[in-house]
């Protein structure tokens, strides 16, 4: 019983991080109708960037975010302006294949720069901290990362729902032609949106790298978890993405209890089963 409760809690905390992975993907699908195949690889890029900043400047992981977030924003903005804007808005195929190529490039650049060895970020004093509630032990670091993920999801929800920027983004998402007619510069908006997405990827990268060792080829799996969280929750629904992430996290950790190597398998299985039961996602509106 205690083990089950502990697995459930850990699954929820892991799932919140997956939801944060999915948040960027959800925004990019929602606003630009584009799935970025390199999404997972960019999480890994963020992790390596943090690692470099930490060792060069001799600072902690959370302080390093002050550098990582602006750098990731700039990277996203530049990529959108010079590359993604050329293919976005046509069919689904072009952005998909373009980012697929980008994914291969990123993985091999990382391998060339940092070798194929795994790395991890030092969490410092936080690493070993934990406390007990009714005999169930909770790590401080996973809890903080889960809370930070939920806070970011909330902030994004507010940004999309209640600001001028959010209204523009929703307008472009609903009808790019009309949005352009009433004065929305969609290409410039896309640059800012992708910058924001990359900043979130930076935060997700640090939280991820603090708890799991990473290597240049770790990206595709992160992409799949993000994707599952987004589709499971229902497209364009940020709280749905959180729920989707939680389901995947819990399924993975309970799966790993059944057979240690099968954790991710049960995550994928939960995704497939949910897909058969509710193709539009758990919180999605049925279309047509």
């Amino acid at each position: 019983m205690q083990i089950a409760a502990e697995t459930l809690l850990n699954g929820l905390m892991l799932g919140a991080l997956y939801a944060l992975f999915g948040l960027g993907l959800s925004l990019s699908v929602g606003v630009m109708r584009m799935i970025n195949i390199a999404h997972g690889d960019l999480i890994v890029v963020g992790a390596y960037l943090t690692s470099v900043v930490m060792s060069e400047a001799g600072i902690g992981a959370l302080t390093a975010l002050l550098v990582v977030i602006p750098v990731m924003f700039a990277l996203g903005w530049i990529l959108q302006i010079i590359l993604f804007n050329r293919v976005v808005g046509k069919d689904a195929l072009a952005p998909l294949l373009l980012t697929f190529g980008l994914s291969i490039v990123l993985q091999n650049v990382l391998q060339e720069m940092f070798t194929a060895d795994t790395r991890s970020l030092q969490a410092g004093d936080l690493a070993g901290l934990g406390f007990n509630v009714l005999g169930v032990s909770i790590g401080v670091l996973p809890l903080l990362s889960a809370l930070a993920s939920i806070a970011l999801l909330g902030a994004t929800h507010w940004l999309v729902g209640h600001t001028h920027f959010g209204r523009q983004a929703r307008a472009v998402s609903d009808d790019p032609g009309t949005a352009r007619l009433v004065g929305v510069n969609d290409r410039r908006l896309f640059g800012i949106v992708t910058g924001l997405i990359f900043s979130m990827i930076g935060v997700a990268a640090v939280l991820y790298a603090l708890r799991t060792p990473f290597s240049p080829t770790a990206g595709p799996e992160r992409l799949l978890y993000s994707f599952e969280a987004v589709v499971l929750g229902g497209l364009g629904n940020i709280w749905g993405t959180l729920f989707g992430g939680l389901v995947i996290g819990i399924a993975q950790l309970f799966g790993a209890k059944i057979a240690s190597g099968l954790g991710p398998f049960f995550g994928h299985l939960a995704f497939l089963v949910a897909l058969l039961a509710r193709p539009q996602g758990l919180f999605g509106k049925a279309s047509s």
Partner: protein
Amino acid sequence: MTAVTVSSANFRTALVRMSVSAGLLIVAALVVSIPWLSTFAVQRLLVEVFTLFAVALAWNLLAGYGGLVAIGLHVFVGVGAYSLFALSNELHLNPFLLLPAAAVFAAVFAAVSAWPMFRLSGAYFAVGTWVLAEMMRILTLNSPSLGAGGGMPLEAMSDIDRWTRNAGVYWAALLVGVGSLVVSRQVLRGSLGLALMSVRDSEPAALASGVPVARAKIALWVLCAVISGLAGAVSYMNTLQVTPDASFSLNWTAAAIFIAVLGGIGTLEGPIVGTIVYFLLRETFAGYGAWYFIGVGLLAILTMVTAPGGAVSLIPEKWRLDPFRIRRRMAGSDLDRSASFPQT
């Protein structure tokens, strides 16, 4: 135009046709007799060429004609290879005889997987198939009966002498490569091809005209699964060992995508051109390791941005050949268009 010029034109076409057929016959005879003419190393490389070509052709059919972009196409490579190895080792049968069984396994797997996968569409379908491939990889990785992470050898092959084994695998690969091209051409020229092209051009219009869209897509999915499954089975007969990480590897689909993008999506010539370019690049630059892959990735990105139609699209329309005769043209399209409307 006088009768004389017509008959001389006919004579010239007949002459061209005959010399083309004669040339094809010579090439075919040469290709079939490769095992007597070359080394094992050349044969092994050609097995790679033919099998990868088949997978790229399948990917291109799905993406270019069915609108089904599958990043997880390698799942069928793995399923084909594993079903052949497992059956041959269990039943102690000659693996060449079991190739049809591998095709059946891939087809059944495709039909079953269509049930969840076809609930997704577009980019979601693309990533969804990748999830499926990952599931199969993890499952075989954790199946002791399939050799887990170390994979399994093809035991029955040890009874066959080296020359026969290499020649047999080469002919099997040739059959898969050429066979998949011939079958694809026949399918595209037939009613399924017409249905698929109408879906590609406008799905709502196809539906409204009574095209069985879902059935056509599933038929294409199963066909491409069989092609990829056979390619996988033959490819791992070549290496005599199948492992989860190699056979259920994204590298298969990545190479297929690169070939299709570079050659031209939605044509049959595209994968041929793309495969030649891919292997020329690989044999020349593979020694550079990660830099080679960076170059390949950048080339794919550049192609998507500057020439989304691939190498084939760079040839001007009027010089473009249609060697497989799958393009459909409106009859008398050079005439005034209004003349072709029925007049009442």
